[in-house]
């Protein structure tokens, strides 16, 4: 199992159940390893809606801390628009094609 979780390209209501199960399975496995923080990547996300962002909000309410390490532009735009801009923390975020903030 890889060290970071790649969110699917379609992170929306149509895949919400599946995405939630995949994320929860991964998080549970990671917690057993007692890592410092979880790394989530939204590099491949093309389609995202409120239910997709809600999955990560739910992750924020688990004991384990997590950080976004990569974000596609559609994902970053969705975070900023809905008020999850705090997730786009340059401290952890590797800048990606599209928007980069030197």
């Amino acid at each position, binding site marked *: 199992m890889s060290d970071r979780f790649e969110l699917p390209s379609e992170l929306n*209501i149509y895949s*919400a*159940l599946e*995405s*939630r199960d995949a*994320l*929860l399975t991964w*998080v549970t496995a990671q917690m057993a390893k007692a890592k410092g923080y979880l790394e989530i990547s939204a590099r491949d996300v093309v389609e*995202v*809606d*409120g*239910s997709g*962002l*809600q*999955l990560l*909000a*739910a*992750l*924020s*309410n*688990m004991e384990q801390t997590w950080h976004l390490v990569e974000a596609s532009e559609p994902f970053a735009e*969705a975070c*900023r*628009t*809905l*008020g*999850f*801009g705090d997730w786009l923390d340059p401290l952890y975020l590797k800048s990606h094609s599209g928007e980069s903030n030197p």
Partner: protein
Amino acid sequence: MSYSSDADQDFIAQAMPAFISEAAEQIEAIETLLLELEEQPDNRELLDSLFRCAHTVKGSAGIFGLNRVVEFTHHVETLLDKMRDGDIALTPDISTLLLQCNDQIKFLVDTAADEGADTPEQKSDRADLVTQLQALTDPAAAADVVSTGGAKTDNTTVQTPEGGLRIWTISARFGPETFRNGMDPLSIARYLRDMGRVVSVRCGSETVPPLVNLNPESCYLSFFMELETTANREDIEGAFSFVLDDCELDVVAPETEGQRMAPCD
């Protein structure tokens, strides 16, 4: 406009402890940052962190409809914003004022569920703090408050410039059926964004259950947005027209807090 129901009360009761605990952390951080800033008044990072803390408290309070916290913290935020812009420098007096304000925010958060704790003395103390904040950020407005013989209250009737840009605060808590009904808070936030300039927006994750308990097709989201726009109340509420049956919505023009805007536009 406010739609209250038992479900909303349940929501508030469940999520409130998370809000209080998060706000307590922010308030503690504000105090630490203020003390650090006294030592290093030119440290921009400290000032930015301070602003973010105050902003987070205000945003979360907005999600829970804690208007006293929102209204008071807004004045603090305005001062911090002017300090970030370099218009106002941190003096020992301002630092003391901000520490007093932080105590007031703590009081308002701690007593969020208890209107009775907000005694006339507390209200008067708070009004004094607001007057001092405004004397720094907007001397003309502060003078006006003094000349009208007292503090701004919820029933203030300050007139807004007609047809001009106004900053509306929009607090929305979406019902569980939102996604299943084909609606999406993100689309609504985009729609609002396109009506003007989003001064701030915050989505509350404290209202969402932990992943392990999450029904991913139910909606638990809520957001608090400050939107600068020439649009009127009807336009703003229109963005929510398809979710109103399943959404608690508060749209407030800060200058007319507690007063319904007349549809004169």
